[in-house]
């Protein structure tokens, strides 16, 4: 288990470094891909809700630290995102080929809305038109492009989830 945790931490750290140093300054069609979110989706789908939430918290904390942003802001959003995607991976999304794509699309939209709402609550000036109209669809598409390669890479590092080997036995 401890090796698994170290692998997850390493993945999160690499994703944070890449996101903050390279990806966040890459604008394509008015949007920026979110490698960190896509990597978190992969970790959550493969390791479940609790580890997804923990990875989300760690990823958010590291990202806010690296960017000198408000500590706790990204952690809050990614903790919730990691938990929800983890629950989906453990239940409905289990062994579904399209689970990474569906999860990335849904979580990108919810994350954008959640981030927007959080900024409004914190009193930040926000441009809802840009976030929800102009950048959202390109953002979702860019994240979808990253979804399969990142999921495959994360699965190669972490291995398949324990529950994947367990057979479901129907009673009655």
């Amino acid at each position, binding site marked *: 288990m401890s090796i698994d945790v170290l692998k997850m931490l390493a993945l999160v750290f690499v994703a944070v470094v890449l996101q903050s140093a390279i990806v966040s*300054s890459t604008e394509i069609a008015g949007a920026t891909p979110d490698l960190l979110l896509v990597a978190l989706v992969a970790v959550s789908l493969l390791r479940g809700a*609790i580890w997804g*939430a923990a990875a*989300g918290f760690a990823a*958010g904390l590291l990202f806010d630290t690296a*960017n000198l942003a*408000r500590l706790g802001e990204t952690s809050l959003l990614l*903790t919730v995102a990691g938990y929800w995607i983890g629950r989906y991976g453990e239940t409905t999304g289990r062994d579904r080929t399209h689970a990474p794509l569906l999860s990335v699309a849904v979580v990108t939209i919810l994350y954008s809305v959640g981030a927007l709402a959080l900024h409004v609550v914190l009193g930040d000036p926000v441009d809802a038109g840009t976030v929800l109209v102009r950048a959202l669809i390109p953002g979702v598409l860019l994240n979808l492009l990253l979804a399969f390669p990142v999921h495959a890479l994360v699965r190669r590092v972490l291995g398949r989830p324990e529950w994947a080997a367990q057979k479901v036995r129907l009673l009655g």
Partner: protein
Amino acid sequence: MVVGILVVLSLALLSVYFRESSDGPLHGAQDVGATAMRPFQVGAERVARPFRDLYGWFDGLLTAKDENERLREENARLSLEATQNQTAVQENLDLKEQLDYQDLPGLEDYRSVNTRVLGEHSQFGKRLLIAAGSSDGIRLNAPVLSAGALVGAITELSPDTAVVTLLTDESSAVAAYSIRTGALGLIRSGEGGSLAFSNVTKDKDVARGDLVATAGSSVPRLPSLFPRGIPIGIVTSASQTDTEPFKQIQLVSNVNLSNLRAVTVLVR
């Protein structure tokens, strides 16, 4: 249970960070963490640079022909303007000397710190993280330029990094004037990430194509953060209505604010 604890912890962090001053313990820990992560970020950026350059090269190739033609025309026009400007500058210096004219601090009173943009600091706030900080002499509210034009100001500082709040951020406001007519106003963020030249009264003359620059300030109680005369942008539209007390003026920045890779910070 674990998730609940993590959410509460996030909220607690956010709450404490929001309330404490910039020299509080959380800010201090963040500075240490950011400094520790910076070598990794710089390393990743260096690895990615050849690929970025390759992308930029292909992108440039596609637009090179049109750009070449446009730049030739611009070059001819600017050469003529440069000659006229040199004459005007010399006349200006001669007249100032004759009049013993007392002026505001100019660009020549500042030193430049050129640095790399590490990335976007906020998805919404239009803020950038740069690879230079207080150890390079940068101070809070220092003006930040790109290609000779004002792009924003320093709003957060650590020893090795700083946050630049761009002019397009809703919290930015810069005193500015039209170089052609001297009309004074404020540069604020406009619709859809554009810039607006606001608070210009209707009796002032501002027209499309006017160059707008920082106004500076000689009022001792309210000294301007920026030296006078840094170009900001060019007016793209100017209109007025009977009901509004001020003109509605839009301008476009001299640089592409959404794609800054390197900036210059002015320090005194």
